[in-house]
């Protein structure tokens, strides 16, 4: 049986991690279909049909799908699941919210946040904030799997020519109502996919001081991250949080400034290719994962860092 990928999108276009989830799905079986549920999603459905690994697209549209509530999505996917061996989506807040509701309806034990497909029924996933890796084999006939997007490369966005088939909507779930979404718009790269991430922690001491992080990020064309401590303290909004319960990032360069490096933060960034730590406490655990550690007062180091960056003829973007 084929694999069913649940596409993540904003009604207008696919969200980037759909491409990573598609890659993971195609590693389970080459016959990958994708379902897109939303309202006025024609363009996004077309993008989905063009993904290199997608053989067929199922499109479900209704007004009550516009805001992606799990209660509305679940019955549609559960019905479609009859024809599929695996249901797959990203382990971000969209998939985390949705997949277990599907799995329980299918009486299936979900496998969350896989980082590797070992075989169609066996997967590798981090546990204990990534301090251990577990190899898990599923004995359920239908498998619900969420994938850690940063552990799989995005598939090619062209080359596919899957047919788009309309599927009937299910009834609206009346007990959950969407009220609003407050998205923080920014011209910077998305945290989850940025090549460089500059993160600040409690050591920044105030929200105002985060301007220093912003300057460095702007100079490097980087996304801005934060430790939970900085978000809890109100220095910056929650969508910037990197860690076990925040986002997992794997940039080419991660610069941790004023971050001590709690286990929970390391869980979100220690797979980064190059890690830089700037902290005045030489004993801070962040130095144990840093390729380049600078023991310094960040309020002196950041202006110097900007100065040095300004001296460079070119900066990769």
């Amino acid at each position, binding site marked *: 049986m084929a694999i069913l990928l649940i596409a993540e999108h904003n009604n207008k276009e696919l969200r980037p991690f759909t491409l990573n989830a598609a890659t993971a799905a195609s590693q389970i079986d080459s016959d990958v279909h994708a379902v897109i549920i939303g309202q006025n999603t024609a363009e996004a459905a077309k993008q989905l049909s063009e993904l290199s690994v997608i053989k067929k697209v199922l499109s479900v549209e209704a007004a009550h799908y516009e805001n992606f509530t799990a209660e509305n999505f679940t019955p549609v996917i559960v019905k479609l699941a009859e024809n599929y061996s695996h249901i797959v989506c990203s382990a971000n807040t969209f998939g985390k919210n949705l997949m277990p509701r599907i799995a329980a309806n299918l009486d299936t034990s979900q496998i969350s946040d896989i980082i590797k497909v070992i075989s169609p029924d066996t997967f590798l996933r981090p546990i204990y904030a990534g301090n251990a890796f577990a190899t898990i084999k599923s004995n359920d006939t239908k498998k619900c799997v969420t994938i850690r997007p940063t552990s799989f490369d995005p598939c090619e966005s062209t080359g596919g020519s899957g047919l788009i088939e309309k599927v009937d909507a299910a009834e609206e779930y009346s007990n959950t109502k969407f*009220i609003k979404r407050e998205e923080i718009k920014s011209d910077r790269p998305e945290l989850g996919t940025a090549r460089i991430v500059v993160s600040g922690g409690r050591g920044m001491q105030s929200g105002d001081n985060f301007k220093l992080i912003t300057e460095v990020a702007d100079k490097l064309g980087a996304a801005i991250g934060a430790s939970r401590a900085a978000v809890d303290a109100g220095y910056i909004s929650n969508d910037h949080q990197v860690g076990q319960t925040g986002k997992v990032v794997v940039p080419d360069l991660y610069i941790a400034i004023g971050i001590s490096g709690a286990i929970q933060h390391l869980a979100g960034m220690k797979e980064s290719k190059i890690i830089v730590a700037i902290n005045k406490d030489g004993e801070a655990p962040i130095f144990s994962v840093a390729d380049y550690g600078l023991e310094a007062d960040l309020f002196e180091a950041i202006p110097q860092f900007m100065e040095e960056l300004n001296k460079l003829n070119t900066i990769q973007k």
Partner: protein
Amino acid sequence: MKILVAVKRVIDYNVQIRVKEDGTGVVTDNVKMSTNPPDDNAIEEAVKIKEAGKATEVVAITIGEEKAKETVRKALAVGADRGIHVKADGILEPLAVSKILQKIVDKEKPDLVFMGKQAIDDDCNQTGQMLSALLNWPQATFASKIDVKENKLEVTREIDEGLETIEIGVPAIVTCDLRLNEPRYASLPNIMKAKKKPIEEIVAADLGVDVSPRLEQIKVEEPPKRKAGIKVANVAELVQKLKNEAKVI
């Protein structure tokens, strides 16, 4: 309104875990255990709602071995009224946990069920959503703000893009984020008082639900280690290394 709060006993969040040499799991003997952190937020929120006069009873439940009862006792010490300990040994998958909780919900008939959004041991992030599915109740996951209104809740959820606000009808499930509130510490008098609060014991096997594992844990291993890095002397050296050695800027 009655609130049932599910709490889990896990290895303390500050403990650096160790993988067993035989690959069967992580070392738990003589390791500090405590309540799963966001479950503390769930208890705190329930107690606050009761203190605000919007709930009549807070019941704390845990599922697990004998020692898991400590987790319920701690919830009682911070304000839960009574406890339930469903005794079960071995690994329970979130699906099994949600089936047990469903049985308890059938019996207790709470208006709300709260729990942490994720347990920091298996990092599954499933149980609340699964319980909502089994009950066909609304779910508000990753809650960072809860307003209790007449027969409904307005909940702010932390999502990847920022914040989302939804309204859910009661009965409902809420999974709590760490920023929902600041869990209180139990005072000594309250710890003493909690010892007198009742904890009902139920044997999981008596509930008539199939909790046998569906997943096989083939092995647990250490993640690949990062090779040790270096300390640089100053900012100029750092920038030079990033430019010429790592070639990332």
